């Protein structure tokens, strides 16, 4: 938190050479256009968040940036020998495979005992080194995944929905953690998410996509942008902040409001 290497917020996107730069990426699958001239770049110490509605091509974009898929058009420029730490959206290890957190962390990069412990402490789950990976809760798993992404000392951290399956308090903690790591290590962060408000609070640059780039800029700018408000009508009205929406009622087929407890099949039919 001290001695931050983080660039000033106003310098978004202009700080040093880009770690990764995507230029006019296009992707077509089965004759359907999935991405259309998407460009973005991430520099050291910068947090770039890609948001967009379901089916906007967020995950496809991430796969192309990671080198898992080839784009149909456009190009990607990476800094030579850049190390990527990748945190996938969802990892589930079948219980038939006996695997401790320790083994999971060192599947690719061997690491010393002390470094492993330090890594787990950093992400806030110090005691889990020898736990079977299948016994972890959703939040613990996300942290362990983050620790694995960090083990190779990445220049660029790529996170796919990092707060998936974590409750709202945990989400805030995960994003705080990412923010702290970025300051401590100076790595660039590229994150895909639809947890709009929490993510936007942690972002330097937000890229809002819906096949093409709808709008891009600082979170405040993007949240006021008409394209963004069109894509996320709920969010636009709320501004940036922690957005919670508790459903205390649902609507039945006739449009009548009824309490949530009455939703489950039988109660509904009883009416």
């Amino acid at each position, binding site marked *: 938190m001290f001695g931050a290497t983080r660039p000033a917020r106003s310098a978004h996107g202009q700080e040093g050479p880009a770690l990764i730069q995507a230029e006019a990426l296009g992707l077509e699958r089965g004759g359907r256009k999935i991405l259309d001239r998407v460009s973005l770049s991430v520099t050291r110490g910068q947090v770039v968040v890609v948001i967009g509605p379901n089916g906007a091509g967020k995950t496809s974009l991430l796969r192309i940036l990671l080198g898992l898929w080839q784009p149909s058009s456009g190009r990607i420029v990476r800094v030579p020998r850049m190390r990527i730490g990748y945190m996938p959206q969802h*990892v589930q290890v079948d219980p*038939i*495979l006996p695997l401790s957190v320790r083994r999971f962390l060192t*599947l690719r*990069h061997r690491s010393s005992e002390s470094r492993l412990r330090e890594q787990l402490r950093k992400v806030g789950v110090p005691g889990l080194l020898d736990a079977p990976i299948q016994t972890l809760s959703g939040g613990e798993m996300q942290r362990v995944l983050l620790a694995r992404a960090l083990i190779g000392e990445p220049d660029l951290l790529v996170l796919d929905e990092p707060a998936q399956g974590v409750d709202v308090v945990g989400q805030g903690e995960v994003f705080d953690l990412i923010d702290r790591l970025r300051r401590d290590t100076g790595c660039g962060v590229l994150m895909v998410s639809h947890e709009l408000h929490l993510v936007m609070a942690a972002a330097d640059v937000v890229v809002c996509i819906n096949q093409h780039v709808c709008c891009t800029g600082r979170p405040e700018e993007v949240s006021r942008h008409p394209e963004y408000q069109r894509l996320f009508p709920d969010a636009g009205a709320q501004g940036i902040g922690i957005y919670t929406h508790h459903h205390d009622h649902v609507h039945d087929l006739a449009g009548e409001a009824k309490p949530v407890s009455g939703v489950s099949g039988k109660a509904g039919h009883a009416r």
Partner: protein
Amino acid sequence: MLDDFVTRAIVAGLMVAVVAGPLGAFMVWRRMAYFGDTVSHSALLGVALGFLLGMNLNLLVTLVCVMVAVILVFLQRRQELASDTLLGILAHSALSLGLVAVAFVEGLRVDLMAYLFGDILAVTRGDLVGIAIGGGVALVLLILLWRPLLAITVHEELARVEGVPVLPVRLGLMLLIALVIASAMQVVGVLLITALMIIPAATARRFARTPEQMALFGAGFGVLAVLGGIWGSFTHDTPTGPSIVVAAMLAFVVLNFVPWPGARRRRVP
């Protein structure tokens, strides 16, 4: 010492079990039981081709199995048919093709039962050398591929981003499976080979805390199954290959369903 046919049978069985157990662990982890079955069913086609071309049977069985495995992986990628449908079609087609091809080999009276269910008591010194070479290469390959294989088994995309060469590793696994099938064919036969890989590995799960332990214990249970099966076959005059599988099955049932004080509970939320 190797003059005795029982000794030869035991040596052959042990060599196969030692490599089939650890490979079986991967087949269990990667949910490849039916895949292995399909590939091993095609081994008979290799036998027929070997007779037709007058070439080494082990070599041709390995080649045919590798080819079938690669074709399978390729077809699975296209995802037009569900994986189990595809395997169901290929497993039985391959077996039938093999049986038909064997019928085409003129002037040859192949003892089909020996290939389908194994004929370990007829193992010759030459066969032992073949099994040792095939099994040895497979074991070395497995040790070399262990870490990358484990990485892609846990999460293939993550492994690829971290620099694991996924395609070569997967092709290596295909070659491994083919080599073990060719070696194990004489011991338990093409119809029962997968059992010798899957059952010992599955038995080992309860006692293992690491992937390596599961592989080693799998090899151990395989060895026990071979010894028990040969002993049972000898004392009760039963077919040896099936007896080995029955021994493996008994160990699985006893060790998994009987309360065992030292074993860790495996239930995971």
